[in-house]
């Protein structure tokens, strides 16, 4: 008797399921974690648009699945703070299906079992990713495998105010040859400081040059110019070269001593740093291509010709003559969470990474493209002249390593920058201090070379 009831119940259940399944619409809610950021509202917007597109496809196919994107818009101060918040959310089980993040956090995301491995997804959807600029894939790799999709890219460089050079008595040939001399390794980091000091001494500029006031990736290109290779790919460990670090700090010390770099720069606010360059008080600034919009406005420039007449872009020059100049690209990436929705989330990312939506983001926020084909698009030709000009610079680009401790590494080397610039320590002392901090705080995560 018992068995009969059980069989009947099972049959009834099966019948109901079989009957109901095709009728009930399946709603999938994909959660999207994105920092509210003026420099990229479409990072999230493009995923929302992709979901609408996907829903229209489902409708056309007669499928009942519908995708809703639930946006978790965070208000963290920067990408590092946001990544830490994201890891905290993940640790309490609130893992988002997609996250917009700075690429160097991928190492931490993989270690925390948050980021899904996308190798299979990329291989299965090859046509959707075939045009992505290959070097950008390096930015999403951790231990050789891809855990994210590049969302945008950018290039960081030294901006030079040509009018200040002119006021110093430099001719047009000097200005137009500058980038060439940097690329040939003739114009070094020391020449840069000398030029900036000359600008101050001649009265053409109030400050020689300015860099960011806080910890951040920009410094990596200056370190690279002094021959520091900060990542050992084979061992997936961070790396520092003692002699290179000392050369780098000696250079900063030289810049402060010759009056080209304000000694208290590390106590400035971002606003004062921007203002120093945009109000024409500083000859040079060390920052990224997305500044072009603000610079156009500040200097009242209307087109590409006027812009390049006013400003010159150079890579971070080589540390010594004959060396190689460097710059830095710091892509933002989409990371797919290792959740039950990861397949559909990855499809949304694939759709948002296509030429049209990505160009919409790139040209409105001055970021370089992720696909080669984007530069040929009329919208890009029309509005993205600065980005097209910046794309060849990516040949000299370095990326930040996708190592979980890179934030700490940058914070430690920045302590040395602060100590040298403010005169608290000599370059030798700062080097010894930074190496000691690294040995103790990073332990096995860093290789210390002489």
């Amino acid at each position: 008797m018992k068995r009969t009831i059980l069989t009947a119940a099972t049959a009834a259940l099966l019948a109901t399921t079989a009957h109901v399944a095709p009728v009930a619409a399946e709603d999938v809610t994909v959660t999207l974690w994105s920092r509210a950021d003026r420099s990229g509202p479409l990072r999230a917007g493009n995923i929302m648009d992709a979901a609408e597109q996907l829903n229209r496809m489902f409708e056309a196919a007669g499928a009942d699945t519908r995708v809703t994107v639930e946006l978790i818009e965070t208000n963290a101060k920067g990408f590092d703070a946001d990544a830490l918040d994201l890891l905290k959310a993940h640790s309490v089980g609130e893992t988002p299906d997609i996250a917009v993040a700075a690429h160097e956090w991928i190492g931490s995301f993989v270690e925390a079992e948050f980021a899904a491995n996308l190798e299979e997804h990329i291989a299965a959807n090859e046509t959707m990713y075939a045009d992505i600029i290959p070097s950008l894939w390096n930015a999403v790799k951790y231990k050789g495998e891809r855990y994210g999709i590049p969302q945008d890219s950018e290039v960081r460089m030294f901006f030079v105010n040509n009018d200040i050079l002119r006021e110093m008595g430099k001719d047009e040939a000097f200005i137009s040859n500058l980038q060439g001399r940097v690329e040939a390794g003739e114009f070094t980091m020391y020449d840069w400081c000398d030029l900036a000091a000359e600008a101050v001494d001649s009265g053409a500029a109030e400050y020689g040059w300015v860099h960011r006031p806080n910890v951040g990736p920009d410094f990596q290109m200056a370190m690279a110019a002094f021959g520091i290779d900060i990542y050992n790919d084979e061992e997936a460990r961070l790396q520092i070269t003692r002699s290179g670090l000392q050369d780098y700090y000696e250079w900063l010390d030289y810049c402060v001593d010759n009056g080209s770099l304000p000694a208290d720069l590390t106590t400035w606010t971002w606003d004062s740093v921007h203002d120093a360059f945009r109000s024409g008080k500083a000859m040079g600034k060390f920052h990224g291509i997305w500044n072009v919009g603000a610079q156009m406005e500040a200097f009242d420039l209307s087109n590409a010709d006027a812009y390049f007449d006013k400003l010159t872009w150079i890579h971070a020059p080589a540390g010594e003559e004959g060396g190689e100049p460097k710059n830095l690209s710091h892509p933002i990436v989409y990371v797919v969470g290792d959740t039950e929705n990861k397949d559909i989330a990855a499809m949304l990312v694939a759709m948002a990474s296509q030429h049209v939506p990505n160009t919409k983001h790139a040209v409105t926020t001055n970021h370089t493209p992720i696909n080669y084909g984007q530069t040929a698009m009329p919208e890009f030709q029309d509005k993205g002249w600065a980005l097209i000009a910046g794309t060849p610079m990516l040949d000299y680009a370095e990326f930040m390593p996708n190592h979980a401790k890179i934030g700490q590494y940058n914070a430690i080397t920045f302590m040395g920058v602060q100590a040298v610039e403010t005169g608290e320590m000599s370059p030798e002392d700062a080097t010894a201090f930074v190496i000691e901090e690294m040995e103790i705080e990073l332990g096995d995560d860093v290789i210390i070379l002489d």
Partner: protein
Amino acid sequence: MSSATRQATNALVFLGPACLFLVALLVIPIGVDLVVAFTDMSQTLTVDDLTTEQFRKIATPSDEALLGFELRYSFYKALMLTAVYVTCTLTIFNVGFALVLALTTTALPDWLGGIYRAIWLLPRMSPSVVYALLWLWSVDPTERGLLNQVLGVFGIAPINMKLDAPMVLIVFANGFIGASIGMLILTSAIRSIPEHLFHAARADGAGSLSVVRHIVLPHLRWPLSYITVFQALALLVSFEYIFLIMGPARSTMTMAMLAYTKTLAPDIGSGQYAYGAAITLILIVVGVAVALILYRLANMKALLARPRIEVH
């Protein structure tokens, strides 16, 4: 209701909320801190190991050192900066200046004293970010800064306090706020001194300074002791204005700032939760030691003792 039940209910009603508050906001956090300090918790918030690794980041064993270990430079520096910061802010402003304010404003006519006290309360009432911004504008190193404008009138070249005198800057910024609490407590203490004592002193020919020395100061002993102990502990863990005004500058990296930058502060290599917990644990130990020493020095036991006359 039996007497025992009533007593239990009373205890629950009157002491319950305070006990709950104490446990939730003090005992549990200290317990969590104690545990986390002995783990390897970092960005991913996972704990793989129970370890003393965090303390090895603070001190390294050394045979030559007196206590068998040597503090690491950045930690030693943080400890020294904390000592300078707490001592200076406490003695100059939170106690010293508060006393001056209380004495002077109570000597003035009531309405005038009230106005002065209200002015000194303003920093306490303004939001901390606004207060910090006012300081940043005041000490701006260019000729735009208020301080440099004033110096300019006297023909003095602009100075850069953030670079050249960072400790003075944060002592002033914290002191201007800290002085107000002491001022209020001491003012009310002065007001509670029986009026006839002043008249008697005057009748005996005492001048203003003698009145202060022989009548006012002896009455302020307990409030002064209380302010010293309480404010010393508050300053030990305060970092809000240091962070808002100086950012993560090495020149003002006190213990509390160090713990904050290693754990929760944005964009400066934070996320080292266990390391921050270890620093905080040491800060708690230092705090307890300071409290006990001051408690002893100020003879607070006498203040908290039962009154000798029993009042029914």
